[in-house]
C-alpha cells in the first residue's frame, strides 16, 4: 500500500519528509559543515571548490551557488539546514524566508508587521 502523503497539495509548501531527506542528505550535510568557522572561511574563499568536495548533484550545487532556496528545497534541502548558508552570508532568518516568496525584503517585513500572510493564500 502506498504511503499517505496528504500534504503534497499544500500550495507553496514542500514538506521535508523521509523521501526529501533521502534526496537531500549530502546537500544538508554540506550545510551542517558550515557550523564550523574554519569551513565557513574555506567555503567563502572558493564556493565551487568547497561544494565539489561533497557528493551533491550539479543541480544542488547550482542551487547553493545561486542562493536559490526554493530550488534547494525542491532538491531535498531543509530550511533549518539551509539557514547555515544564510548565517555564513550574514542573512537573518527573515531575509532567508522572504527570499523564497518573490517579495522584496521590505514588502515581506511589512507583511509580517501587518499580521503575516493570509492563511487562505493559494487556496482562494
Amino acid at each position, binding site marked *: 500500500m502506498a504511503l499517505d502523503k*496528504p*500534504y503534497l497539495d*499544500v*500550495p*507553496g*509548501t*514542500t*514538506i*521535508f*519528509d*523521509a523521501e526529501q*531527506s533521502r534526496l*537531500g*542528505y549530502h546537500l*544538508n*550535510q554540506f*550545510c*551542517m559543515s*558550515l*557550523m*564550523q568557522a574554519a569551513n*565557513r572561511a574555506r567555503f567563502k574563499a572558493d564556493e565551487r571548490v568547497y561544494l565539489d568536495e561533497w557528493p551533491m548533484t550539479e543541480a544542488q550545487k547550482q542551487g547553493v551557488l545561486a542562493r536559490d*532556496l*526554493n530550488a534547494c*528545497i525542491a532538491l531535498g534541502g*531543509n*530550511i*533549518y*539546514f539551509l*539557514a*547555515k548558508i*544564510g*548565517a*555564513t552570508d550574514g542573512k*537573518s*532568518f*527573515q531575509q*532567508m*524566508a*522572504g527570499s*523564497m*516568496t*518573490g517579495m522584496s525584503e521590505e514588502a*515581506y517585513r511589512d*507583511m*509580517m*508587521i501587518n*499580521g*503575516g*500572510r*493570509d*492563511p487562505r*493564500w*493559494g487556496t482562494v
Partner: protein
Amino acid sequence: MARISASVYTSHVPAIGAALDQGKSHEPYWARVFAGYEFSKQWLHAHTPDVIFLVYNDHANAFSLDIIPTFAIGTAASYAIADEGWGPRPVPPVVGHPELAAHIAHSVITQDFDLTVVNKMDVDHGLTVPLSLMCGAQDPVHGAWPCAVIPFAVNVVQYPVPSGRRCFELGKAIGRAVRSFDAPLNVQIWGTGGMSHQLQGPRAGLINRVFDNAFLDRLVADPAGQAAVPHIDYVRQAGSEGIELVMWLIARGAMDDVAEVSRGAPPRELHRFYHVPASNTAVGHLILENA
C-alpha cells in the same frame, strides 16, 4: 515524591534571542514581545522549581541528518550552547539533572515510549530562548539559569513527526515518571515552539490568528480533543513549521487533571499572551498551574 507544579508554554523564535543578545529588547518592535513575559519573569522568580523539564526541538544543530531521534532525553550533568552558524548565544551553559533524567528515561521507556538517551549534546535556541524569555538576560560567565534543566528534544523537522496524540500520551507517561521519583522535587514542564509560522517556500510568512487562539483555548480546556487533530490540519492552517505545536501537548499531558490515576482538578490559567509578529512567527505563551 516529586511533583509537577506548573507547565509553561512559549514560542522559541531565534530572533527573540538575537534581539536580547544584541541589546534590542527596548526597541518598540521587540518591547511588545518582551512585555508579554514581564508577569512570567516575576512569577518564575517567585516560584522557581528545582527542575525544568524542557520540551523543545533541535534545529539541525545537535542532530544532523546522520541521526534523527524522534524523542531524545538529555541525561547529562551540563550542556554547552550550540553554535548555530552565528556563534553561540552569549548565555550561561545549562545545568542538567542526571538523577531525575535517568529515572524518567527508565520509567518512560518501560511505559513503551522509545526514548533516545543522550549524554552529550549542545542545546540550541529552541531551549535557550524560552529560558531567556522566562528568566531575563543572564551574563554568560557570571550568570546562571535559576535551576536545573532536563532537555527533551522532539523531531519536528523531518516528517513524519510524532502525532499530537502520541505527544499527549507521552506527556502523561512523563507525569507518571516524575510523580514516582523518590525525592521532594518541584518540577515544571515546559512545552515550546510554534505558534503559526512557515519558514519555507512561496507561502513563507503565513500566520493564522484564528487557529492559534483556538489552539490556546483548547489546549487549556480540551487537550485530549486537541491531541486528536492530525498533522495535516497544522500544516494547512498553521504553516509547515506550525507543527511544532504538538510539543505543547507533551507538557499539557503531564498536568494533574489528565493523569489516569488520582486525577486532579483542572489547572489554573495564570497568564496568557499572544502577539504577531516576532520575525516570521506568531508568539504564544501560557502558564498553567496545577490546582
